[in-house]
């Protein structure tokens, strides 16, 4: 499914751009020659910084600023790591960027490598994306053959190559330090921070880690200038963003929008074709599943970092899951609790034990075996977990469920009293 609209559209038109010729024909590989010819690495970092591009992996940290944290005087090798682990529930945007526009990602990673002085980049891709990994492998081969990767890229002094590294099924490996552990061949368990990856990342060397969508945005930024990008959307949330939308909507898929210009309602009802007739929005997890849930009252929130935050949630990865009023919020919460319990790496106790507890508690509620005290109990449990863990995974479990309990307490009370039968799902073809 091609990505619509702005930044990524320039490259991905009707068909996937999986040959170098097609990518070139769509205007690709103009940014890299330009940067190599005219822009010093430090200036390139400055371009990134001025564009206002924020990380698209979830946390929204300014990309250029992160690049500037890498020590300039380090004698160690430096690395660019592209986070393509995309495992956040409801999120599938990176998947399409890689499958439909792999070269734009390679070009972006190469630009980042040039800017920070790295000689190797890694794309850590989730093992389940074997298809996309093969597309990338092939693209890397083509780029190498064309002198766009390897020694002396485009006859410049830049040496840079990219390795596609497959994960093997673990959501936690999307967390940047767990990713690095996994890339080092270990169990994917997060590291203590500090030191941060910018200082001691892969093999304890300075490492820049960015999401696929973040890095793929670099070529158009270099090509059209930081100002062009910064002028898209609101000042603090410039640029465009791909939203993956799924759940109870008629046209689930990826939609690229300029931040701040589209509301949640438009995303659901215009782009994604709205709900089934007669249904109303019950709950929306707008930025993947690790964010507080929003309700019908939030539909007019513009989609940008600040506005969504003001509405009480977070833009996260842009994986927007919509549930209509046929769904049960307690069951949905349980399903998320199961996800986080399954994905907890087990290293730190509050997450390992807390997610297990949370799932068991919700299971009892669904089965109608809970008591009212269990609701208070669940509230304290959130406090037991929150702010205590080694990495933010457990926070991601608490956020949607805690907010659901706040917003839909009546539903929880009803379920505690009566249990919750499985509702009719929205089946294919419905």
């Amino acid at each position, binding site marked *: *499914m091609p990505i619509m609209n702005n930044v990524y559209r320039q490259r991905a038109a009707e068909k996937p751009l999986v040959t170098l010729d097609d990518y070139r024909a769509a205007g690709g590989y103009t940014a890299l020659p330009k940067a190599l010819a005219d822009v010093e690495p430090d200036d390139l970092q400055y371009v990134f910084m001025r564009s206002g591009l924020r990380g698209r992996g979830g946390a929204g940290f300014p990309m250029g600023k992160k690049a500037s944290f890498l020590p300039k005087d380090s004698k160690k*090798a430096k690395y660019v790591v592209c986070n393509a682990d*995309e*495992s*956040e*529930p*409801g*999120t*599938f945007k990176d*998947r399409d960027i890689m499958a439909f526009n792999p070269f734009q990602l390679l070009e972006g990673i190469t630009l980042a490598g040039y800017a920070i002085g790295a000689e190797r980049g890694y794309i850590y891709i*989730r*093992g*389940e*994306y*074997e*298809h996309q990994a093969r597309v990338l492998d092939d693209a890397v081969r083509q780029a190498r053959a064309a002198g766009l990767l390897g020694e002396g890229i485009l006859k410049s002094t830049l040496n840079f190559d990219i*390795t596609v*590294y*497959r*994960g*093997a*099924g*673990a*959501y936690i490996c999307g967390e940047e330090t767990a990713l690095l552990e*996994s*890339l*080092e*061949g*270990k*169990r*994917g368990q997060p590291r203590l921070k500090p030191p941060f990856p910018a200082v001691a990342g892969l*093999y304890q060397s300075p490492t820049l880690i960015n999401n696929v969508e973040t890095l793929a945005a670099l070529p158009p930024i270099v090509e059209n200038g930081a100002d062009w990008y910064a002028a898209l959307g609101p000042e603090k949330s410039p640029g465009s963003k791909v939203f*993956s*939308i*799924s*759940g*109870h909507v008629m046209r*689930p*898929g*990826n939609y690229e929008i300029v931040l701040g210009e589209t509301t949640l309602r438009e995303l659901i009802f215009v782009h994604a074709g709205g709900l089934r007739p007669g249904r109303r929005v019950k709950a929306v*997890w707008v930025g993947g*599943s690790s964010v507080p849930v929003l309700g019908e009252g939030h539909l007019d929130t513009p989609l940008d970092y600040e506005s969504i935050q003001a509405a009480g949630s977070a833009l996260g990865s842009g*994986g927007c*899951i919509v*549930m209509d009023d046929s*769904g049960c919020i307690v*069951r*949905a919460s349980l*399903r*998320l609790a199961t*996800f986080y319990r*399954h*994905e907890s*790496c087990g290293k730190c106790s509050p997450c390992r034990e807390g997610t297990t507890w949370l799932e068991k508690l919700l299971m009892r509620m669904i089965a109608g075996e809970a008591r009212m005290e269990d609701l208070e109990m669940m509230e304290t449990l959130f406090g037991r977990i929150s702010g205590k863990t080694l990495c933010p995974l457990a926070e991601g479990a608490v956020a949607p469920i805690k907010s659901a309990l706040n917003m839909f307490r009546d539903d929880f009370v009803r379920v505690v009293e009566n249990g919750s039968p*499985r509702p009719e*799902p*929205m*089946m*294919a*073809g419905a």
Partner: protein
Amino acid sequence: MTADEIRAYLEPRRHEFADPRSLVMPALKYAQTTRGHLSREDLDAVAEATGFTPSFVESVASFYDRLYTQPVGNRVVSVCITLSCMLRGSDEVWDHLCEKEGIDHHHGGTSADGRITIQEAQCLGYCDKAPCIQVDADETLGPFTPDSAAALVDELRAAPDPEEYWR
């Protein structure tokens, strides 16, 4: 798989990593392609080829969902059950497949003839095709109904075994 075969597979990739430990994951994925899971011998071979202890190798393998330290069926069918898929009927698909294959609803498992393993998967990144199913590491497909999922399993059962098990 033997340590030499694994070494031969890793050799061209060795220069890509400053630390040979990084080769453990590719080695495990590759070692799994012969039997579809990692036997004690496979783990030993990976340890030998990479220079780490078998226990270390096993601890890595056991961390990841898609590395199997226990035997699984000829084809592994992963049914995504996470929120988007649940809203679109993955529980119905799951129940139907488990029933059809005579597999425990709670944990999944392998059919009696050893051909098909049905397992729950967490979000596969194909929520737009919910409910979606991935067979081994093939491209994820969807949306499924209980019947179309059953038809897929029948097809898999009838099809010849893959030459290599990439999961």
